[in-house]
């Protein structure tokens, strides 16, 4: 069996930052593996550990820089990685969901996985749509926001829990092959061991350009145009307590007491 797990390097914005046109200026960004993808990677690696003959392949759409982040997935047990990038992608301000689905579909065609795992959303652009779009594009079944997975490989079914709003979980049977978008909390992502980190150095990260996937530049043409990026106006009308921690705490204590808190 082959499990394909999509991973993304996401940028986090520092506390203080400046914008540079339609982007946050590079020096205020820190890069990391998307939180939701960490859980998807862990789930894939656990499937490989619990079943015989499972290969876990990760795929990312990202520039060369992102290889550092992808190595973390390899260090945690992913067998090999594919990185899709192309000059045509360099100039795209906002890669729309459809374009991502088309790129990843081409990888699925190449790899022919039995199961695809993605994160529920990426914490930078927060579209939350790649996994289900991909499923639809490759005609796999799917489930979104999965926080428990019990795979019945022989029966060709994944039994999942989907985490709905308000503390309610939905139990669903999903026919395989499927794409599942993984919610945080489904497992405990492991730390990469030193051995894993060493081994990751020799694992393959295969770069693929559009032409390698049989695609041309038109595939990244987007109907979405990023027209403005700005810091939201703060709506804060909070009363801030000033001074050192002791003074702040004392003022807060006064407010809390006024509200009857702590008066046993």
């Amino acid at each position, binding site marked *: 069996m082959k499990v394909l797990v999509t991973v993304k390097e996401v*940028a986090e914005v520092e506390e203080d930052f400046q914008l540079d046109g339609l982007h946050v200026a590079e020096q205020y960004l820190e890069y990391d593996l998307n939180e939701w993808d960490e859980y998807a990677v862990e789930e894939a690696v656990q499937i490989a550990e619990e079943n015989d003959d499972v290969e876990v392949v990760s795929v990312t759409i990202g520039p060369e820089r992102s290889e550092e982040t992808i190595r973390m997935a390899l260090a945690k047990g992913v067998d090999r990685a594919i990185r899709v990038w192309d000059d045509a992608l360099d100039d795209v301000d906002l890669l729309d*969901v459809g374009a991502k689905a088309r790129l990843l579909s081409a990888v699925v065609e190449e790899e022919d996985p039995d199961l695809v795992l993605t994160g529920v959303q990426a914490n930078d652009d927060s*579209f*939350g749509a790649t996994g289900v779009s991909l499923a639809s594009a490759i005609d796999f079944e799917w489930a979104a926001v999965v926080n428990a997975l019990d795979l019945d490989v022989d029966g060709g079914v994944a039994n999942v829990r989907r985490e709905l709003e*308000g503390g309610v979980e939905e139990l669903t049977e999903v*026919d395989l092959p499927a794409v599942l978008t993984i919610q*945080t909390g489904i497992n405990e992502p492991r730390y990469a061991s030193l051995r894993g980190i060493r081994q990751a150095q020799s694992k393959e990260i295969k770069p693929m350009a559009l032409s390698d996937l049989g695609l041309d530049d038109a595939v990244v043409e987007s109907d979405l145009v990023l027209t403005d990026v700005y810091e939201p106006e703060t709506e804060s009308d909070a009363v801030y307590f000033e001074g050192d921690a002791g003074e702040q*705490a004392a003022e807060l204590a006064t407010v809390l007491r006024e509200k009857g808190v702590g008066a046993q």
Partner: protein
Amino acid sequence: MSDVLAITEHRRGELRDVSFELVTAGSDLVGETGGDLHLAVIGGDVDAFADELALDGVDTIHTVPEGDEFNHDVYVQAIAALYEELDPTYVLMGNTVNGLDYAPAVAEQLDIPLVTDAIGLQNDGNLVVTREMYASKVESTVEVDADHAAVTIRSAEWEPTEAAGEPAVEAFDFELDESRVRSRVTGFEEVGGGDVDISDADVLVSVGRGIEEEENLELVQNLADALGATLSSSRPIVDNGWLPKDRQVGQSGKVVTPKVYLAIGISGAVQHVAGMKGAETIIAVNTDPDAPIFDIADYGIVGDLFDVVPELIEQFE
């Protein structure tokens, strides 16, 4: 003229709030474009839902009595069939957990662009969608350069429409392709795990990822004890297994409305805020002055919780 087709949502026999918010967003949009607002209600007791959805601004409600509960395979097929019949310019859906489960497939199936989690919509010839990026630190506008589009709207961003109207109600027939229904909902379960009902508490001390380590949780528990408060948390604390699931406040956790909510080391992600914005008084302690939690806080301390919390405990001992 641009018509809008908005897809309502229900669960376990009740329409969800987002359905009424979609009516507002949809009628605002057709207000600008001069088109019609169509609603679709798929599955469950569609006639009873249609009665409830007879709201101001709605032109037609299409009822699709297929299945009891949400099933994305049915939704996608039904919406695709409706789209073919009505040819709406925009399909509006909720950015809910079920929205995440069917909206992308709808857009993909119809081969139209998708913009998710909208917090604002304008139409000046083209559709312009306002949304957030980087965990709400940055806002952006996205123009849709296409004839048709699918958009999901963030819950609780539009006021729900309550005023009654007189839409036409039409039953919509379509041929469901059973062979393409490849998932089955088999049940629902409430999450539990603990012994405390945080939605009962008057005072909540809520802890987030700022606490860093499990052993530091004791510090915040001590504060809760000193205040006679109940301890709750944001999602990462529960994900890490440091507190049981029923202590989680937020979209996928509990909705709480205490008199006082103390958010300690919590950034204020939308999914968290969804669970606590109804608190009477919100107090936030956070090192980041731009953390979104301060936008909804009544009182704020910009500071390190490891300095502030011990001082606060001392104040109450």
